[in-house]
């Protein structure tokens, strides 16, 4: 590549990064800013907004709701994902490609379509909205991610390893406990973390499918109407941002560790390449 075009590439990359991350950086900036109005210049450092969060009862309820939804969704999606990934990696059956494709579809479906469709379906069934309906929606959108992550974990699990264990006198259950599980565990944890994060941040489905129990993103949205609450929303956003980044990095690190254990090229096949 010529010097000139690599220079342009660098400029492009920098502009892209600013475009992508500048708004995100503003979040913690104003969260610690000692002013109720969100505007530059910054006036001073404070942790008051975070303290305010702590005292907020509605917020705490919303946070607990979010945790319940995120943990349930992550566990269920990971379980479903594990079955699908295992089946896809080990067995061949008629219509396999089509079935896997259908499982992956929510990945590219607009969330609002999923949300509206679920809402219609639930009301047709005469079911009332509650936290569990949000969980259903989140499981739907998290499962493709779980399948993608776990597929790479299960694909790296050589069938001969389980046979070797069995051959050495170990039972089926013992083989699962001593070989299968330890080898896919990092993938499972990675899937749990990523699904948890997706669910925790998700707004549209939660907004449509939640009844009176709001989740954190829905709570944040409801607070945006009150300018005075904006700084504490910023503070809450900062916490969510840090948690999300932490979990995603941790999840990816676990996935790479799993790949390395199985002797695969760790860099190859990120969470999303398993989908293709």
């Amino acid at each position, binding site marked *: 590549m010529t010097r000139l075009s690599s220079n342009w590439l660098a400029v492009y990359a920098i502009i892209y990064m600013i475009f992508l991350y500048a708004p995100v950086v503003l979040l913690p900036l104003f969260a610690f800013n000692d002013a109720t109005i969100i505007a530059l210049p910054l006036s001073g450092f404070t942790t008051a907004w975070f303290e305010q969060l702590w005292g907020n009862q509605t917020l705490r309820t919303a946070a607990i709701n979010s945790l319940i939804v995120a943990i349930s969704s992550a566990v269920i999606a990971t379980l479903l994902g594990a079955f699908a990934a295992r089946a896809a990696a080990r067995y061949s059956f008629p219509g396999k490609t089509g079935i896997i494709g259908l499982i992956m579809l929510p990945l590219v479906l607009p969330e609002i379509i999923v949300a509206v469709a679920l809402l219609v379906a639930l009301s047709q069934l005469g079911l009332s909205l509650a936290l569990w309906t949000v969980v259903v929606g989140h499981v739907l959108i998290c499962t493709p991610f779980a399948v993608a992550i776990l597929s790479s974990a299960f694909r790296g699990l050589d069938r001969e390893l389980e046979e070797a264990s069995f*051959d*050495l*006198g170990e039972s089926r259950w013992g083989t699962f406990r001593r*070989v299968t599980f330890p*080898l896919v565990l990092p993938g499972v944890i990675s899937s749990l973390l990523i699904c948890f994060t997706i669910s925790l941040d998700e707004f549209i489905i939660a907004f449509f499918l939640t009844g009176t129990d709001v989740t954190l993103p829905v709570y944040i949205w409801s607070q945006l109407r009150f300018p005075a609450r904006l700084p504490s929303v910023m503070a809450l956003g900062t916490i969510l941002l840090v948690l999300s980044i932490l979990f995603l990095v941790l999840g990816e690190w676990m996935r790479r560790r799993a790949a390395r*254990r199985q002797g695969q090229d760790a860099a190859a096949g990120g969470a999303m390449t398993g989908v293709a």
Partner: protein
Amino acid sequence: MNETNGSAPMIELEKTVKRFGTFTALHGIDATVQEGEFFSLLGPSGCGKTTLLRLIAGFENPTSGSIRIAGHDMRGIPANKRPTNMVFQSYAIFPHLNVAQNVGYGLKRRHLSRREMAREVGEALEMVDMAGYERRAAHELSGGQRQRVALARALVMRPKVVLLDEPLSALDKKLREQMQRELRDLQRSIGITFVLVTHDQEEALIMSDRIAVMFEGRIAQMATPEELYRRPASRRVASFIGVMNFLPARATGETQTGLVVQIESLGEVVLPSHTIPAGLRVDDIREVGIRPEMLTVIFDDAPGPRHSFEGQVSGNSYYGDMTYYDVVLPGSERTVTISMRNTANRAVVRPGNPVRVGWSAESILLFRQED
């Protein structure tokens, strides 16, 4: 049952059939492997060797027929309850465990003390020349070392039979040849029955006490390496084991001493009766075979073997110790391969030069038409 080592049957296969859906991978295998024997399953890729090994190990169930190991019917006995241990083609070293944990994997269920366990593992590693590698991680091992660990992991279980699925195919040539000798010597010294799967005829010849040659789910011949090489039961076995020159031929008559056979380009020859396989119908003879080393280039005019022909060298391959010549037969387009041991005072014959080639009637093998 005879109690002396090596004469009791260890594995008995009787009409063992394996079907996958409509595809028949094994068509009624009958074979017996003796205790203490180094037995090989040899055949081209896809002929069912691995399938047969997996049936013995208990990973697959036969569609029909029976498998007995050490006198016990194995029907319904799963792999983890059989007195066999497998060395997998991929070695299947547990990647999350170190060498000692890999080797000790199967001992875990035997509830040994920590010291007994360490001793057993150490002894097994010693056996495969890997002492001191206990704490190595799986990913730090070379291909040859993985192979040794896989073997130690099987041997430590003290199985009645060790099953090996192409254990050397992933190694480079030099290491493979070294491992072939080591593996054979180890088997001889510990006396455990080995069943080896390989598609490499040379490997099978070097290592085995007996070989079953398989084609398309059937055993074509079961014999010692020497028998297999010298008396292949069919044209197909003959061309799979080593190099064989085939020439069209017909039986034309019989004398008191043997069978008169007319061989294309070589003429009429009387084959001694004892070289003619029992059960071969004289009218069925369509071809003869002769090994490259049974044809000799006659370098001076010294009186050579009884039979000879005048040919022309069309090509040669020089291997240092040996030279392989392609020689065009007189009055024919056909070439035969001749191998000659090189000696100090003999130059390699260049292509284009005429040569006199000697042969003897005893080295001629007879083959039927095969379909």
